[in-house]
């Protein structure tokens, strides 16, 4: 079990305490216009109005029995976004084909983020991919969940000293379930998805709401490592 305690009140992690010498903090000084509005300051001036400037809001819960029913329904149709971000993607193929066959569990890979509700981070995340991960994750329709597969997504794994991979993916997007291993066996990934189902049924897989609540913290972290932020601040 991985200790998933994060201090969200802390300074955004990267370069903590050394903001004055960091040129990137001054590059995006005013991405929050006020508490509810984003400025999309990374985009060219004429494009800023094309994108939504609202922030994500936590989903409101309904009456508990209804919520339980919804959670049961959510847990039984997990559609995975087929985005192979790293080596972990190679175990997705045995999973979806006839030997391990995740269709029997109500899961299937989907080609577009609009149809998917589980993001499977497959392994190490380079900075260039992180940008696409953030974008794909924000484009996914809620309720959405993240499963981080492989050690590299948890603590950098084998690339702990690589200049181009992030060490903890949970500082940039919220993660619901981790699967350790390099590579984890398909059975381990299946166990991870089963755990995710349990969490959803118990109403504990709240990554999406966490992202909305701690939006500033996540965004600051993302902008610290993605040095050329040229996309909208929240991609609807």
């Amino acid at each position, binding site marked *: 079990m991985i200790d998933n305690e994060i201090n969200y009140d802390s300074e955004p992690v990267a370069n*903590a305490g050394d903001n004055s010498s960091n040129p990137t903090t001054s590059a995006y000084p005013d991405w929050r216009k006020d508490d509810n509005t984003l400025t999309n300051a990374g985009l060219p001036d004429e494009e800023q109005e094309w994108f939504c400037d609202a922030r994500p809001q936590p989903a409101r819960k309904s009456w508990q029995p209804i919520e339980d029913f919804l959670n049961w329904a959510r847990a039984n149709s997990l559609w995975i976004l087929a985005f192979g971000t790293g080596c972990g993607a190679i175990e997705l193929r045995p999973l979806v084909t006839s030997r391990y066959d995740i269709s029997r569990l109500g899961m299937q890979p989907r080609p577009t983020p609009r149809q998917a509700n589980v993001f499977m981070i497959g392994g190490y995340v380079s900075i260039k991919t992180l940008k696409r991960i953030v974008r794909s994750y924000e484009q996914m329709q809620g309720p959405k969940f993240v499963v981080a597969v492989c050690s590299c997504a*948890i603590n*950098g794994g084998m690339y702990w*000293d690589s200049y181009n991979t992030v060490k*903890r993916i949970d500082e940039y997007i919220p993660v619901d379930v981790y699967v350790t291993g390099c590579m984890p066996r398909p059975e381990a990934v299946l166990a991870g998805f089963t755990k995710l189902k349990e969490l959803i049924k118990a109403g504990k897989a709240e990554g999406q709401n966490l992202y909305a609540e701690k939006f500033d913290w996540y965004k600051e972290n993302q902008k*610290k490592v*993605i040095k*050329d932020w040229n996309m909208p601040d929240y991609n609807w």
Partner: protein
Amino acid sequence: MEQLYNNLSLQFELNDFMLRHGTQASFIAKREQLVSLLTNLRDIHGYTHLVMVTCVDWLEDKLFQLTYIVHNHHDQSDIIVKVLIDRDMPEMDSIHHLWEQGRVFQRELHEMFGISFPGSPGQDEPMILEGWQGPPPMRRDFDTKEYCEANYSNRERDSREPEEHMQRKLYPED
């Protein structure tokens, strides 16, 4: 191979000839003569396949060793041509007109070592590192661990001494 080297030496300034396994020759060529040497090897001596272009950073000598490996499909021999260029002002003639893939190698070298190849198409576009603001990362004086510590945070590791840990786990009362 020695004969080929001797023939080439008449035309070009070469030195440091070395032969491995009878088929892999390597020598150092002059910077200005490289493009004509490679053209000569490709068109006259049959070294038609560019295997790779890479760079070795000799930080102590303040030199970049640009390495061109060409292969001859007829007698299955390789020639490793090394060119030593100044590390502080790295600039090299482009070979993109000789091989199509030359520009891809040069784009990568430009990005990873900061060597400029004037005229090589697309070399200023970022290829691998997007939005990179540090120094060219493959240079030896770039410390990747230091960069990591400054930019990313690590999860705190719970490292245990195996012997102590098992002792405590198996015999907690001792």
